[in-house]
């Protein structure tokens, strides 16, 4: 079945990016067009039917006459797959991006090129999620890296430039690493389509070229998902962005993490060393991200490290490689992206008013902004896995998956990491809202009202409702993710 609307999910944001770039400077037009485009971007994945889309003429070819190698079906075209999993991920990305665009439109000055970069990153991440072609995935990963760096650059501050410099520099290294891995796979098997590679690769696991390719692809995976050696770079990226875009960036990271993990598991799922590397580095990210979050003195940096730590949790669950692990990992990525976005957006409100998020300049804001404090505590409880909220369901399932696949110590460390995240975020909440800061003089006291802008309030309320909704009724959602995970792992 050739599903006709699938390319629109990539093409429409790209066109919008160009139009917004042209509109730059015309404030009103940028606002209206940005909002309208986001509504369309949410609507497209809802309307699209499930299926595959082939870009190119040939859908199938017979065996090669010269060599006689027989591969079941070769799609000599770039293939995009769209099913329940892709729909969920694309919609979540679109929703969080809509919040970022709405919040930006509510500000005094709406920048066209800024929104254009957001659109570009939406297009790139949607393509990464849907592509069933390993080279196409690589191209859009690079585009995503460039557009994310560009979003940071628009902040215009030296620390943002430094973050973008590091990000693009190691983005280049990781991109080349992925490309060389792809080149090795292409040279060995002659195909780029992931399904074909999966079929061609049966029984080839001990080939040293394939092993090198796995290692190189893993390095790329680590960079794109911000795990251990790259965790400082990623957290620096989140913390130097404006917090509302920080929400979008961390959502994109988690979605890309899921997408690449799925590809790795589909291709090399039977290979235990890869699982060991994924587990080990995710574990280090989980704990060290949490510890770094605990010792920060700036709320934005604290939340950035907490987000990285949660990405480590997702990576750990995907690294287990079992059906329970993969489905719990996808579920947790979705839940955590939503709950973390809630915290990021509350911090945006704080940053918007106070123009700073350093703990030394905040304190005692509970009486001035009780609504904000209430929403933020909901976000903190949701991220830390407290029962009525969504992350509880997924964290419980991750621990369960770790125990049932024979890694009880990993389950214990996951519990430790969860506690660490909770303590770190509560520290931030305490220092911002509860503790009276005696060192602030009356002149420096922050002007803070309880009034939250309408667009921001809408975003926060929607996120709270979704968090509680998934937390109370997880099964209709989780069951379908579980089915998708069964298909991913089932090949092995």
């Amino acid at each position, binding site marked *: 079945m050739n599903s006709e609307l699938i390319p629109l999910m990539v093409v429409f944001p790209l066109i919008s990016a160009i139009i917004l770039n042209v509109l730059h400077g015309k404030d009103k037009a940028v606002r209206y067009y940005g909002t309208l485009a986001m509504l369309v971007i949410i609507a497209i994945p809802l309307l699209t039917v499930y299926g595959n889309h082939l870009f190119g003429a040939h859908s199938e070819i017979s065996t090669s006459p010269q060599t006689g190698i027989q591969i079941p079906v070769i799609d000599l075209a770039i293939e995009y797959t769209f099913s329940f999993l892709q729909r969920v991920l694309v919609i979540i990305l679109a929703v969080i991006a809509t919040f970022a665009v709405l919040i930006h439109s509510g500000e005094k000055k709406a920048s066209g090129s800024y929104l254009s970069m957001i659109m570009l990153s939406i297009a790139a991440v949607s393509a990464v999620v849907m592509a069933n072609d390993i080279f196409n995935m690589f191209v859009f990963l690079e585009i995503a890296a460039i557009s994310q760096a560009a979003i940071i650059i628009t902040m215009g501050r030296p620390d943002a430039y430094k973050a973008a410099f590091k990000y693009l520099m190691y983005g280049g290294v990781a991109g080349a690493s992925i490309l060389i891995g792809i080149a090795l796979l292409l040279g060995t098997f002659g195909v780029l389509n992931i399904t074909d590679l999966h079929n061609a690769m049966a029984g080839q696991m001990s080939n040293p070229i394939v092993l090198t390719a796995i290692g190189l692809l*893993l390095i790329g995976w680590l960079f794109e998902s911000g795990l251990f*050696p790259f965790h400082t*770079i990623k957290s620096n990226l989140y913390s130097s962005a404006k917090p509302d875009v920080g929400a979008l960036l961390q959502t994109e990271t988690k979605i890309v993490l899921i997408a690449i993990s799925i590809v790795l598991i589909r291709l090399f799922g039977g290979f235990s060393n890869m699982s060991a590397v994924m587990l080990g580095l995710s*574990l280090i990210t989980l704990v060290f991200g949490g*510890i770094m979050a605990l*010792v920060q003195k700036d709320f934005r940096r604290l939340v950035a490290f907490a987000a990285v730590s949660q990405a480590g949790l997702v990576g750990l669950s995907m690294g287990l490689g079992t059906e329970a692990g993969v489905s719990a990992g996808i579920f947790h990525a979705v839940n955590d992206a939503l709950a973390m976005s809630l915290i990021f957006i509350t911090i945006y409100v704080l940053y918007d008013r106070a123009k700073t998020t350093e703990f030394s300049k905040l304190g005692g804001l509970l009486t001035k902004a009780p609504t904000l404090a209430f929403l933020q505590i909901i976000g903190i409880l949701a991220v830390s896995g407290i029962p009525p909220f969504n992350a509880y369901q997924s964290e419980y399932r991750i621990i369960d998956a770790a125990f049932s696949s024979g890694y009880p*110590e990993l389950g214990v460390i996951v519990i430790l990491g969860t506690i660490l995240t909770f303590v770190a975020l509560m*520290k931030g909440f305490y220092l911002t809202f509860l503790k009276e800061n005696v060192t602030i003089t009356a002149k420096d006291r922050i002007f803070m009202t309880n009034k939250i802008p309408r667009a921001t309030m809408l975003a926060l309320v929607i996120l709270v409702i979704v968090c509680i909704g998934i937390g109370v009724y997880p099964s209709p959602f989780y069951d379908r993710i579980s089915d998708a995970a069964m298909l991913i792992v089932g090949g092995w």
Partner: protein
Amino acid sequence: MDKLYDFLSEKLKSLGPVHVGSGISAEYMLLAFFPLAFVALVRGLENVTVSVLAILVTAMVAFSAPLVLKVARENSDHYNVASFYIAIAMGLILMIMIGGLY
């Protein structure tokens, strides 16, 4: 435990750009994490050996406290620190992939 707390809070106060409370909780977390990670790493060995080694690791971490400042320094935003760990991780991953885990 009390003595450890006093010792740590003294050290952290004298040394660091870190809140004392969060520094101490991070320190305890490290104390719990290193033995567990070690057990996860050497899970192929038999039980008695692993438990003895785990106790040794715990003692090592406890005696080298406070580690949290070192951890914070090694995870700073400096370009060269990131480079160092990235180079090590890249080499390690390729070695594990091609050479195997044990």
